[in-house]
């Protein structure tokens, strides 16, 4: 019997790359479509149980909350910052003052765990200012610009101010003699 002489292969084995490239492109398209570029986000924790702890007997260890009052102008920008009784000009000043008041209390014998911040803001104050206040008050960056040193963990909001009441609060010095007990404004304001 005669067999045809077997031909030796050329010597070069070539892989078929086409399916692999196909799959790679599929993967790229999948990842590209599911890509969402977001900058990292962090939180400021706020604890506000509905039953206010102030209604009961005061705790001996509990300090009075440090009140931060922020007034707003009609555009929602900050018009005045008060920390306790001190009137401040800027958020950086607030940060320094808060560090003075709260920074001393750190350590095992300090009052770090019990100090509390109460934020009292005008209704129309822009929310970014609340974050600025929280940034100024709740902590600061250490010298390495990486470590965050927390000054206070407990933050709460004062009862919200209705939008209608912010106008008189901007002009506290006027005794408002022009419209004494007229009934019209009382009727126009629904009870909130």
């Amino acid at each position, binding site marked *: 019997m005669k067999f045809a002489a077997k031909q030796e292969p050329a010597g070069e084995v*070539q892989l078929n*790359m086409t399916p*692999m*490239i196909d799959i*790679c*492109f599929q*993967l*790229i398209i999948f*990842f*590209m479509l*599911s*890509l*969402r*570029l*977001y*900058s*990292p*986000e*962090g*939180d*400021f*924790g*706020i*604890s*506000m*149980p*509905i039953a206010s702890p102030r209604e009961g007997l005061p705790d001996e260890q509990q300090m009075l909350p440090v009140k931060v009052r922020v007034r*707003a102008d009609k555009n*929602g920008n900050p018009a005045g910052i008060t920390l306790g009784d001190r009137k401040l000009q800027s958020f950086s000043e607030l940060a320094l003052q808060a560090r003075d008041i709260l920074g001393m209390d750190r350590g095992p014998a300090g009052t770090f765990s019990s100090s509390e911040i109460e934020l009292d*803001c*005008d*209704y*129309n*104050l*822009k*929310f*970014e*200012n*609340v*974050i*600025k206040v*929280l*940034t100024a008050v*709740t*902590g*600061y*960056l250490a010298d390495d*610009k*990486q470590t*965050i040193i927390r000054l206070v963990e407990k933050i709460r*909001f004062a009862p*919200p*101010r*209705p*939008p209608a009441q912010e106008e008189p609060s901007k002009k506290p010095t006027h005794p408002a003699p022009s419209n004494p007990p007229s009934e019209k404004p009382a009727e126009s304001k629904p009870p909130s």
Partner: protein
Amino acid sequence: MFYRGHIEYKCEPNLTPMIDCTFQLVVFFLLTLNFSSDEQSELIRLPSSELAKPVEGAVETPITVQVLASGKVLFGGDVLTSEELRGPLRREREAIRSVLGRKLKNATIIIRADRDVPTGKVQEIIKICQEAEFERFSLRAKWKQP
């Protein structure tokens, strides 16, 4: 006609650089992929803060309430008014209560509010959440690198 000296030319492109690039791209997209289930709407421009560092580890039972610049609330993909938020929040509360091992006390309402929203609006929403018996809140901010 048959030519004895016929040579067969094979033209194959070199695919190696292309495959290299493709793999690089795959790895890049794989690493930047964000599988977190956080609700993040592009409509909201968050305020930024140096102290808002991303937390390590997941928040227990997070519920995200997003507040648009108009004061409307984005909750679970729906645009609601703050009053309309009560119903969905009540449903969330019942859902948490019905799951064994989850406590309503530990549920955190994450508030992603636009930087131009009036603070009073955010406080209104917090009050509505409080009335739905939620106690823990987080105000979310974009991390500004110092």
